[in-house]
């Protein structure tokens, strides 16, 4: 009994130290655990794999710094895949003003890595107010909705965008969202214009997104760091996601042990009270 009593009184700082170690140590002593690929991630990969260099993929980077750790690896992995396949890319942030600052340097870095030319291979639109109105607007007139790109060039003057009329010219929207923004894509772009949408979302949102996947509104889901890790495996580009998965594994084990220990103590003390 004394043991459980002590357990109950455990200082929270000890818990903090344990979880910190569980996250940091795997980086120094990796076990190289394989990551199995889920069908909902594979389907995004397969779809992009089926595109040709004339197709355009629109990345919607609607995430704030808070959840960058989960979504930026996805952005990198899918963008690298598109660039490698010479697929044209448009990056926009209809819902997140902060997302713009997170996405731009990554886009630039990868574009340089793959020798892509701005305006021909990719365009960065940034953010505008309006949220779902932008999604609707793109269904009617893409260029009028955005008017200019992030660098204030009119879209009609940019070779890549001047011929885009509406969603018919966009092969896929990848909605990277830390909020319910992906849902707006479903309600306004899928329901009305039958736009193909793939969602890259935080793990918090992932469980809620499965009904949309089953209903055929999404072609695939990447959920959290795990989803990113799987995509990285698919494109043979192990990076942040894959490296993080090991730490994630051990942290989960530690949390589960905490839950078990905590509940053991709880039941022991309940017994005592009785």
């Amino acid at each position, binding site marked *: 009994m004394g043991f459980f009593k002590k357990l109950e009184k*455990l200082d*929270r700082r000890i*818990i*903090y130290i*344990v*979880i910190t170690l569980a*996250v940091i140590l795997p980086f120094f002593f990796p076990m190289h*655990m*394989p*990551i*199995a690929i*889920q069908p909902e991630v594979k389907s995004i990969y397969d779809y992009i794999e089926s595109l040709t260099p004339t197709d355009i993929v629109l990345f919607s980077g609607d995430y*704030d*710094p*808070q*959840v*960058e*750790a989960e979504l930026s690896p996805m952005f990198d992995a899918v963008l690298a895949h598109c660039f490698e396949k010479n697929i044209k890319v448009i990056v926009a942030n209809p819902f997140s003003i*902060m997302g713009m*600052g*997170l996405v*731009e*340097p990554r886009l*630039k870095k990868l574009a340089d890595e793959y020798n892509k030319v701005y305006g021909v291979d990719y365009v960065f639109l940034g953010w*505008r*107010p*309006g*949220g779902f*109105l*932008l999604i*609707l*607007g793109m269904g*009617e*007139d893409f260029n009028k*909705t955005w008017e200019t790109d992030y*660098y204030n060039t009119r879209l009609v003057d940019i070779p890549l965008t001047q011929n885009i009329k509406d969603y018919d010219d966009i092969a896929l929207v990848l909605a990277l969202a830390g909020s319910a923004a992906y849902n707006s894509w479903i309600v306004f772009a899928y329901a009305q214009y039958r736009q193909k949408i793939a969602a890259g979302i935080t*793990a918090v949102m992932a*469980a*809620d997104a*499965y*009904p949309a996947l*089953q209903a055929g509104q999404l072609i695939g889901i990447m*959920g*959290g760091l*795990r989803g990113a890790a799987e995509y990285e495996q698919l494109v043979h580009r192990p990076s942040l996601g894959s490296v993080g998965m*090991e730490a*994630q*594994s*051990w942290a*989960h*084990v*530690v*949390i*589960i042990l*905490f*839950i078990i*220990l*905590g*509940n053991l103590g*709880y039941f022991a003390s309940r017994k005592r009270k009785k």
Partner: protein
Amino acid sequence: MFWKKQLPLIIVFMMGLIMTVQYFIPHHVSKWVYVNYVDWAIVIAIFGAFLGYFSFLRVHITRIRKKTSNWVFSIITLASLLIMIVFALIDGKGSDSLFQNMFLYTSAAINATVFSLLAFYISSASYRAFRAHSAQAVALLLAAVIMMLGRVPIGDKISFWSAWGIPSINTVSQWILNSPNMAAKRAIALGVGLGSLLMTLKIILGIERTYLGN
């Protein structure tokens, strides 16, 4: 009274009706209404942002003027805002500019870190607060544990029994996601869908008018 209360409610009703009906009309007149509505709504949102910036500044300036507790931090907030504007003026906002870096390495970094504090809280809560105080809570925690193991590589590693044809943790977690979880989420979504629909209807009919202010 008419100008202050009735007319706005009439506008709400008319706009609501027009936009609902517009959805069913494919005619180009209807399309014209739609395109211009989108255009207008975006411009309203642009100017509406003034309100946010204005009240933000007002809160902090009042705090400094009145020297309320922690007013020094309001100075820091305003100073950082000013620095951002100056950076944008002298160096633009392209890649690797002062503006961009300032955002990435202070605001974005701090925000991400603050949210990551939750990892610690979740670990201490899992030890001290997540109690299986009823059979249903047991089900919740059990599903959570399966999920947590099934979504990371270690789940496959420890599923030694999968060699004998018994579903691995990963498979079970996938099933939970695609079957009971989906059912629960859809039941909630159907209810929420109705709830929000009633709300929109109440707004159009002028029954719900909290948003108009008192």
